[in-house]
């Protein structure tokens, strides 16, 4: 993926198995969010393709890709600020259901799933960070995705919120939804991922199970000088 003369990502290839959780890690600036942007459709890959269930989706617009089953959250959360929590999720629920009543039903169910039911009438811009991150997830879930891209959903959360979010992720996996997650929180990512891909300077430097990755000298070296998370 080239920007101007600079390759943000080059030669990154991997597969995600259905129903599994893939962790994407790497130092800051490694190209992780760029990768998400390519999968999600915000960028068209300069070279290479993205396939969903063996069907090519790269080059399509984000809303089409969402319709095909990939939903994402943003690293810097993007709530629909002047809308309430409920309205935020209703807006995304309309993708799959017709009619306001059904959209509201799906939205309420999703909100309950992510533990935001009591906050449903609060205006989203006034929410604390932890709840906003949950809202991002709820919104993405309401589009009934096959693949969920989570971009640093755990950053900045306190321990209690972390546990709650991990529970939510586990429940999402139980529903059969595949998850790809970018995270800096090592403990979290090691504990929930089935497989991990490591990026550095836009290239894939390692891939494997959490145990394999933890032992990989290249990975350790890439993180040298960086805090290994909590």
């Amino acid at each position, binding site marked *: 993926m080239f920007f101007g003369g600079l390759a943000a990502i080059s030669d990154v290839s991997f597969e995600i198995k259905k129903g599994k959780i893939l962790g994407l890690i790497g130092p800051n600036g490694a190209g992780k969010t760029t990768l998400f942007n390519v999968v999600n459709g915000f960028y068209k890959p300069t070279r290479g393709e993205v396939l969903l269930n063996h069907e090519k989706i790269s080059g399509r617009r*984000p*809303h089409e890709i*969402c319709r095909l089953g990939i939903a*994402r959250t*943003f690293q810097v959360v993007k*709530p629909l*600020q002047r*809308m309430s929590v409920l309205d935020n999720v209703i807006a995304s629920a309309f993708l799959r259901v017709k009619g306001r009543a059904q959209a509201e039903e799906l939205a309420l169910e999703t909100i309950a799933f992510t533990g935001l039911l009591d906050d449903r009438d609060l205006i989203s811009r006034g929410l604390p960070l932890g709840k906003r991150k949950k809202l991002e997830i709820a919104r993405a879930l309401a589009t009934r995705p096959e693949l969920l891209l989570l971009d640093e959903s755990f950053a900045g959360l306190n321990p209690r919120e972390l546990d709650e979010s991990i529970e939510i992720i586990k429940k999402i996996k139980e529903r059969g939804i595949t998850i790809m997650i970018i995270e800096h929180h090592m403990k979290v990512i090691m504990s929930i991922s089935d497989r991990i891909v490591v990026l550095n300077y836009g290239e894939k430097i390692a891939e494997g199970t959490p145990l394999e990755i933890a032992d990989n000298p290249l990975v350790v070296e890439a993180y040298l000088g960086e805090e290994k998370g909590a």
Partner: protein
Amino acid sequence: MRRHIPLIVLTIAALLPFAGFSTYVMHILILVFIWTTIGMAWNLLGGYCGQVSFGHAAYFGVGAYTAGILYAKLGMSPWWGIPFSIVIVGIFALILGFIVLRLRGPFFALATLASGEVMRITAENLVGFTGGSLGIMVQERTWVGKLWYYYIILLIASATYFLVKKLIESKLGYYFVAIREDQDAAESLGINTTFYKTIALCLSGTITGIAGAFYTNYMGYIDPNVVFALHDISIIAIMIVMVGGVATYLGPFVGAIIMVVLAEFIRSLPGLGTAYQTLFGILLIVIVIYLPNGIVGDFPKLSRVLSRMVRTSR
């Protein structure tokens, strides 16, 4: 109680002509409802969908000239302009939208400003087609009195009100606001932002065009500098919504009343007449800084300020 306000307003409006007002007052009322229509249309695209158009005069003018040209070139009654403008302005809006909707934020605003001005100059230069700067004059007046004109524009304005309300309460409304609040997030949630922005623009433009066609019939004379005017149409459309209430149903109505009455009041003061653009400019600046969401939009803030003023003056 609050839910019934629109119906109450409509009933009062429908009964107003029986109060025996002078033709001048009826003229003011008609202007109010023309501007209410334009304001509600602009609000759909700007207030709800977040695409701030500085060139709504383009749609108004195309609608006005549709009626005018049908009359001047095809000998038809200019009232045909209203149904015809739905199609013609609709297509025009589609084409224009295709060009400008790919631009974001301030660049969209500038491009729409450009389009309004381009239409004005085009109308001036295509003398054979539009009569150029001389404009088009409708010789036959359908009715001598204002009564039927009033009811027609009242009908158009109320229809617009109910249409906008219905739309915003539906999926479209959620999508529009989502686009306004965060276009990238909306896109990621499966919302085809280009498609919905285009719908908003076409609806907004077409309704404005209908108001333009009505204008031709009511005033009986149009020319490029009147119907494609930047300051007198496009900017006023923005001001009406800003003063009245951005993204509210009745905001444009309130704004139209204030702006029309204010304009007439200023014009009637001797010597102050030429200064009305200065005063409007100052009003615009004040509103933008202190009450950007309009009277209806910023009502809580406004009532707080007013009650504080009342308290301190006691």
